[in-house]
């Protein structure tokens, strides 16, 4: 078991919703990971579809880079519709 890779598990709760991360598990291959994910994460009809992704295949942003990554979006309020004054009487905007 020590050598078994880690898999991240994503479940689509219902038709129409996106897959969301629910947890992780170890398994020797993708097929077993999928079967184990069924047993561990969907014992109570929590999902209609499961993805398993090898954790090694995920590239994540680092918390250290958080500011450099996300701060540039902070001062661009004009990206939100609420930034704009809508003249009185203008419809369908």
């Amino acid at each position, binding site marked *: 078991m*020590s050598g078994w890779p880690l898999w991240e598990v994503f479940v689509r709760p219902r038709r129409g919703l996106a897959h969301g991360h629910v*947890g992780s598990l170890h*398994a020797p291959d993708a097929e077993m990971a999928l079967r184990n994910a069924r047993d561990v994460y969907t014992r109570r009809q929590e999902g209609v579809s499961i993805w398993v992704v090898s954790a090694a295949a995920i590239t994540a942003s680092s918390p250290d880079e958080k500011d450099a990554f996300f701060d540039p979006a902070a001062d661009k309020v004009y990206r939100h519709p609420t930034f704009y004054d809508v003249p009185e009487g203008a419809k369908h905007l």
Partner: protein
Amino acid sequence: MDDALLTQVEAAESDLRTAAAARLAASTFDEVIAADQKIEPRDAMPEAYRKTLIRQIAQHAHSEIIGMQPEGNWISRAPSLKRKAILLAKVQDEAGHGLYLYAAAETLGVSRADLVDALLDGRQKYSSIFNYPTLTWADVGAIGWLVDGAAIVNQVPLCRCSYGPYARAMIRVCKEESFHQRQGYEILHTLAHGTEAQHAMAQDALDRWWYPSLAMFGPPDADSTHSERSMAWKIKRFSNDELRQRFVDMCVGQAEILGLRIPDDGLRWNEQRGAYDFTAPDYAELMRVIKGDGPCNRQRIEHRRRAHAEGAWVREAAEAYARKHATATVAA
């Protein structure tokens, strides 16, 4: 209690979202903790915080895994097919809870294999309660009602724990535990309202499980070594004694409905405190059991070691299959 329990879990979930929405000026460890936001796996955290969490989450995971044994003992002898199916589902849940928790611990940089080794060679502990034997079918009921009940009282506040993966695992666990507690209560209720012998069996189970269940909350506050720092870090939200009191206050009414007597002559309502006075469990016994000298300590660990060793061929076969399959894919 159960409605209240699920309401509390949902409140914890919604507070989590509210706190997460607040924008922090800076996100250092102390500021995140102060704002009731969550620390996530790759965030900077004090080494002692990381170690405390690993110890606590691993011990919790081990308890789920060892906790399968006392009840597993009754699967083949459950009194009906319905009870057997329910018990199987419950024991399978315990395995699932162990896995959620091992996965949460691994986000702190330990490997599951090392944690399993630490359990098997005794370096890490599990809850003292699972070192008591399940002598009769009524014990399965008592475990659901009292042991899972005490675990829930302990665990609901952990849904608000400052470490994100642990808090999220606890939300899942608590939602599932509520079925465990109800099924145990139902078993005892059926027995307590059955024949005289069945009633006596239910009472005997309560007599034996009451004090060990009270001891599950750990030593009294004055002697609790890790409590204060864990409270400051918001890993823990209430003291051992506060949670024990909450559990006793909950159980009194439930025992009355069962028609069973809590084995405590000192149990009485205290108007001033607005809570029940009760006799404390034998903490010296708790320490003895934690140190390895309970009725079933050796049996539990031996069984776990044997199951682990006897499962080796399954793990090896799965690995061999994966290797063969991977080679075949490359060749094609």
